[in-house]
């Protein structure tokens, strides 16, 4: 599908759409992605067009005529979109490299069309300190194939007591703060965290779960009753979101709910946004596409926190996406090895991997008429990028050329064993999906191609 016409070549292009602007031939490395359906939700673009990349930067988008030999990627029949931004990923490095590391996790991202990941701080040691953040950044430079943006802890050691050095951490590159894996449950601490982070306009990402209501191991409902498993009621999430929103109203801090899973929490976020509060939220592909019925048979790959919810909750998540209450789709990619998953259900670790199924499962939203393709891609590109304050998730001229090319029609069956991730705990294993990543580019460099797979 792609072929090389020489790495360094002269180009001569005419951008018809922008009045036939001429480019001076110069010695550069350039790539032309030709004839795809170019969708850039940040700028409302959705048309058949070419994308010219010069020295890793997007140089032009439109009907481009070119005469010089340069590297051409034929994209006819493919969607050409901004590389996806996943704002909720667990890369497990440092500390649990047997589950995943930055190299394997970012390879999985690239295979899923994801070019920027925000990695959660519940590593060992916890990313609550400049040294750990520096280590992650250094490892990402050495071994990462996509962009890695660390999320710092809100409290030291995720202990929910002492705030981290958010100012210094932000300056060092942290794009948000979270104690993910557990909530900041003490109301006083959460209030202070929102007040403090506001000075830096930093985003706080809350794993919203009231601990005293979360003792179970699946959603509380008909299925948990039948299976005899202790349940976690929807209220475990909504009471925490309700409380936090009141604290946001008090403090003005920027607040983002991770992996929203319940109808009541969608309602709460909708009301907060209507009041103009700086509140946002994300949903995972597993929460919007599966329900607690996936647990029947005690499948530990259907165990995560928060749990898969009821049909009513799932429908509310779909409505929330359709109505723009939920603006972000994120994976909560949480690798676990077999030791932690091939055990009794209640003992099994929480979490599923998701980077390599993010795009095809999200495209089901488009097929099911929940949202347009452009809106769906926005939730995985420009929306999270804006929340994190990173200059990605768009095909804007002058920005780094992070691009995904995918075939929206190609049908395939998810096989966790074929995945790049070190761990195989996918809840979509065996699912027939549509939409396949063909190539992923970061700063104009191909970091994934499905050729030869």
């Amino acid at each position: 599908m792609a072929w090389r016409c020489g790495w360094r070549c002269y180009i001569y292009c005419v951008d018809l759409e922008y009045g036939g602007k001429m480019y001076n031939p110069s010695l550069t490395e350039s790539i032309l992605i030709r004839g795809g359906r170019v969708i850039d939700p940040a700028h409302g673009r959705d048309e058949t067009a070419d994308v010219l990349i010069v020295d890793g930067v997007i140089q032009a988008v439109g009907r481009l005529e070119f005469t010089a030999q340069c590297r051409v990627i034929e994209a006819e029949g493919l969607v050409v979109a901004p590389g996806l931004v996943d704002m909720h990923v667990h890369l497990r490095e440092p500390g649990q490299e047997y589950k995943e590391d930055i190299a394997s996790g970012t390879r999985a991202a690239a295979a899923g069309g994801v070019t920027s990941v925000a990695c959660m701080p519940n590593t060992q040691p916890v990313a609550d300190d400049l040294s750990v953040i520096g280590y992650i950044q250094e490892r990402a430079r050495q071994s990462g194939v996509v962009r890695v943006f660390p999320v710092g802890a809100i409290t030291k050691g995720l202990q929910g007591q002492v705030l981290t050095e958010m100012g210094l951490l932000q300056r060092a590159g942290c794009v948000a703060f979270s104690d993910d894996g557990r909530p900041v449950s003490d109301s006083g601490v959460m209030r202070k965290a929102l007040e403090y982070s506001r000075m830096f306009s930093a985003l706080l990402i809350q794993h919203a779960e009231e601990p005293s209501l979360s003792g179970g191991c699946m959603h509380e409902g008909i299925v948990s009753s039948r299976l005899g498993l202790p349940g976690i009621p929807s209220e475990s999430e909504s009471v925490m979101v309700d409380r936090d929103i009141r604290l946001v109203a008090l403090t003005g801090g920027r607040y983002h709910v991770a992996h929203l899973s319940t109808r009541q929490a969608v309602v709460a976020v909708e009301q907060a946004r209507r009041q103009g509060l700086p509140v946002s939220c994300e949903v995972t592909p597993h929460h919007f596409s599966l329900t607690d019925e996936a647990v029947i048979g005690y499948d530990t790959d259907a165990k995560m926190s928060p749990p898969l919810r009821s049909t009513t909750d799932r429908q509310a998540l779909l409505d929330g996406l359709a109505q723009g209450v939920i603006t972000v789709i994120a994976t909560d990619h949480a690798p676990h090895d077999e030791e932690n998953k091939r055990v009794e259900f209640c003992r099994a670790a929480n979490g599923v991997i998701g980077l390599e199924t993010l795009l095809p499962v999200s495209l089901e939203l488009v097929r099911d008429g929940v949202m347009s393709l452009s809106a769906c891609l926005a939730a995985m590109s420009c929306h999270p990028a804006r929340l994190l304050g990173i200059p990605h998730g768009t095909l804007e001229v002058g920005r780094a050329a992070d691009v995904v090319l995918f075939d929206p029609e190609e049908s395939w069956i998810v096989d966790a064993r074929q995945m790049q991730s070190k761990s195989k705990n996918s809840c979509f294993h065996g699912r027939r999906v549509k939409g396949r990543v063909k190539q992923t580019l970061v700063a104009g460099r191909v970091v994934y191609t499905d050729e030869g797979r």
Partner: protein
Amino acid sequence: MRTAGNLWTRKHLLGMAGLSKEEIATLLDTAVSLREVNRREIKKVPTLRGKTIINLFFENSTRTRTSFELAGKRMSADVINMSVASSSVQKGETLLDTLANLQAMNPDVVVMRHPESGVLQFLANHLNTALVNAGDGRHEHPTQGLLDILTIQDHLPLLERDSFSGLVVAICGDVLHSRVARSNALGLKSLGAEVRFVGPSTLMPNQAEEAFGVTVHHRLEEGLAGAHVVMMLRLQNERMNSPYLPSVREYAEFWGLTRNRLRLADPKAIVMHPGPINRGVEISSEVVDDPDRSVILEQVANGLAVRMAVLYLLCGSGVRR
């Protein structure tokens, strides 16, 4: 021994869920024919000679374990009892490893009890050995369900009924933590009985009506009204002085089955209990010892017959695997 085995094609008995009316009938018919063995002078038949049954109990239960052990031995099987203390699970070995090791010894059936729901299903997904669920967490206890149903079936003529259809069964007490309640409800529902769950609201499964097709009652009197079968559940001590229940005194006052309260049920109603009984808590001694009402000892006898039937059918009685 009859042709019932031909109707039985399952490899495991993991629960009552999913068992058809016909499968339940096959199990009960087999149990009835085997019950005769237990009444003989020499209570032993060679049916399962050369078969190996492992009883693997991760929770203490003298009754159920003994019942399975005797069931196997009466049919001449080799029965090995393993309790959690003598197994290697506590040395950090995973449950799957433990069972894989057992499987390597090639037993015909592993009978297992475990404190966590779904463990049997989990093992069945990964192993080949035939498994019998002797109670997993609060999920299911199918042989208890079967022995209770057999006991009820025996009493249908006395209750002036020719089938389970329309029979009212009140299952009373700590339904939330009860695998006995779940297995009974599932089995009785598929036979056409009307099942009530009766108990405090803190001890009731979420959305029980929809989950099990039962009615839910939070007053014992209401739940007992007109019932043909009153099944009392054991109240575990650890539920007391917890957010579930304030005290034994309060529980006994509102939820204990007394002779007076039993008058609300059908005049011929039978009273059941899976044991062990907390006399004076969930049930008064006068009811337990009332020969006209209590069928608790019949349950024990039927337990043996049902477990013989299960082992017989799972140990390759006919077309299987």
